[in-house]
């Protein structure tokens, strides 16, 4: 009995000490780093050039501070939001992906960069990219990092085999409208059995990405129920593409990769960064791919932002880091090192950017995407777009499960409106 009591006492004492330790540690720090000269940034792999980070780790140019860069893996938004909500362990700077509009309802959590002099830098960046960082209340809080101008990637060898136009100029000329895109796709399908793109959902999304108008206006009013709207047009085009059989119904990424590799799917409308993925997953197709202008005009897909949470211990130094990181020279270097496509137009005129990798034969992807970047329309992405995902879901249902398109559209509208009403939006 003595043994068991002693061990019990020890155990209880241990638990008590543990509890006391926990309580004494109460009141956690808001900032991650206790070093007053250290700023902490959260980013994800390949979203900032490591070479630039290692310079800032010693000293952020023009300041007395240095930077600690923490790679945050998956669930980036969840981590950032829970940190901000719990008011604990908030970084001094953070990257945010192309979904910045998610943070608009709580925009006060991030500093207004105009108050730090952001207007002086506005002229350096593509207008449409800059505008994406402006909130509905007209505060500029999200600074441009990279961009994602889009184009039509296609397999020249497969197009040749199908006996349809195959050089970039004539492919672009043969599909100036979406109707022409579908007609070309039908020829491709008829002649060699290949698809123009993986899914109808992809076409639907890229149609919207290349349009000045999207789901909502700046006041949060839904536009998709109007007599004419981008969303309805994009929907009709996607339905037409499904009926024409020009998309491959490849819904899972592994299948998509295999389809591009084999040429079963011979095209894709996607942003500049996709070239990197393509190179990694299908290196054997090197030299067979070309880039053509997509129907109507180029759009933007992806591209991230950097911002300063309201708890930042030195906003001036943080802003100095942002403008240094994103000056044209450094953006050009980031492109060379990790293929982040610049948002600063001057990066291209420096002549330091290495462009042709040979993946697109003799075609220079850099020139192509620079032209595309200049075409991208200015648009507004609403915070409620996350609630409008039903349109993408339903177009997938039409393609994968053969759902009636009219019913699918009605369901998408009904479900979106239902969710919006739940969120307190008048529809």
């Amino acid at each position, binding site marked *: 009995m003595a043994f068991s009591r002693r061990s019990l006492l020890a155990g209880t004492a241990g638990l008590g000490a*543990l509890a006391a330790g*926990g309580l004494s540690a109460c009141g956690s720090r808001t900032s*991650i780093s206790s070093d007053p000269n250290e700023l902490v940034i959260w980013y994800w792999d*390949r979203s900032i050039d490591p070479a630039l980070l290692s310079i800032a780790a010693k000293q952020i140019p023009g300041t007395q501070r240095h930077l600690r860069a923490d790679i945050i893996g998956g669930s980036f938004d969840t981590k950032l939001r829970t940190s901000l909500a719990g008011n604990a362990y908030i970084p001094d700077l953070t990257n945010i992906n192309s979904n910045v509009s998610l943070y608009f309802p709580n925009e006060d959590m991030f500093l207004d960069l105009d108050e730090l002099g952001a207007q002086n830098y506005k002229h350096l960046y593509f207008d449409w990219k800059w505008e994406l960082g402006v909130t509905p209340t007209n505060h500029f809080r999200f600074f441009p990092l990279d961009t994602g101008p889009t184009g039509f990637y296609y397999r020249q060898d497969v197009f040749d085999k199908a006996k349809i136009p195959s050089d970039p100029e004539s492919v672009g000329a043969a599909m100036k409208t979406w109707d022409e895109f579908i007609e070309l796709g039908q020829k491709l399908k008829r002649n060699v059995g290949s698809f123009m793109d993986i899914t109808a959902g992809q076409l639907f999304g890229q149609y919207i990405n290349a349009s000045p108008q999207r789901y909502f206006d700046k006041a949060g009013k839904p536009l998709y129920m109007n007599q004419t709207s981008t969303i309805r047009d994009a929907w009709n085009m996607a339905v037409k593409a499904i009926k024409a059989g020009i998309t491959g119904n490849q819904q899972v990424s592994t299948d998509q990769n295999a389809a591009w590799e084999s040429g079963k799917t011979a095209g894709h409308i996607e942003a500049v960064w996709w070239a990197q993925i393509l190179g990694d997953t299908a290196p054997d197709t090197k030299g067979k791919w070309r880039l053509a202008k997509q129907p109507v005009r180029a759009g933007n897909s992806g591209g*991230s932002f950097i911002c300063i949470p309201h708890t930042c211990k030195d906003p001036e130094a943080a802003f100095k880091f942002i403008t240094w990181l994103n000056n044209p020279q450094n953006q050009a270097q980031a492109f060379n090192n990790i293929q982040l496509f610049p948002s600063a137009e001057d990066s291209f005129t420096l002549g330091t950017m290495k462009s042709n990798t040979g993946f697109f034969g003799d075609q220079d992807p850099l020139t192509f995407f620079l032209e595309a970047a200049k075409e991208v329309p200015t648009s507004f992405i609403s915070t409620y777009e996350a609630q409008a995902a039903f349109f993408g879901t339903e177009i997938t249902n039409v393609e994968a499960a053969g759902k009636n398109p009219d019913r699918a559209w009605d369901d998408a509208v009904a479900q979106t409106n239902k969710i919006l009403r739940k969120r307190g939006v008048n529809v």
Partner: protein
Amino acid sequence: MSTTVETPPATTTRFGDPTKTSANARTRSMVGRIVTHVCIIIGVMFSIFPFYWLLVMSTQTTAQIFGYPPKLWFSTHLWENLNAVVHDVPLFQSLLNTFLVSLAVAVLVMFFDSLAAFAFGKYEFPGKNTLFVLLLATFLVPGSLSLVPSFVLMSWLGWTGSFAALIVPGAANAFGIFLLRQFAQTSIPNEMVESARVDGAGFFRTWWSIGVPMMRGGVAFLGIFTFITTWNDYVWPLIILVNPRRLTLQVALSQLNAIYSTNFGEVMAGAVISVVPLIGIFIIGSRHFIANIAAGAIKG
């Protein structure tokens, strides 16, 4: 390997009944054995195949993984995939972290759960049934329920980013108590507990000298099982660990999923690294699964 610690089977069984010694029965038993082995080997092949496939993919480049037709045999890129993992994430530090955290949780769970299970399984005390029903009810609470509130709680405690947030909440669990209680009820004869009481042993002494040895198969199983689940735990560490020097393996490996491109060969190599130590530990510990749980039970 665990094959060296075979204990003779405690029971007569459907095949290979030793009491029947006629030639006919022996032949039947032979056939029975072969059928048994064939069935088991087919099962083992299904069981092992995806793991084999993982190993194969870890030796391939991303392009080979997505190639058609699928390549069934090993390629030569394992080393370069492993190097990529080591280069991209703090692999060895997070391996050590994961090992220590999993060990701590497993030891605490074995200790606290076996105590509670022994009390529940072999003793009567006022309020026992209410407490046990409560315990079962907590078992049904979906773990995903509390992700956000738990994060808020941890930031109040100042445990954000610390391993205490992984260890302390899991130090005792309903699952283990329920499991061990079943072991206690089926493998500890009441007579032994009773005679311990007559000999003047208190609860803790009885637990230590009778309960633990008699439940050891279950306790060992629970320890290994807890170690494995803690090792593989993903969502909670992902949320709570923010310090890159204090990551667990699963969280570190999740960083291999870059935002724009994923090197699948590298991801597979990382998965192999996260799996191999566990299999080692499982093989070392597997003799506890064999331990005859009823050994020492009152015979006659």
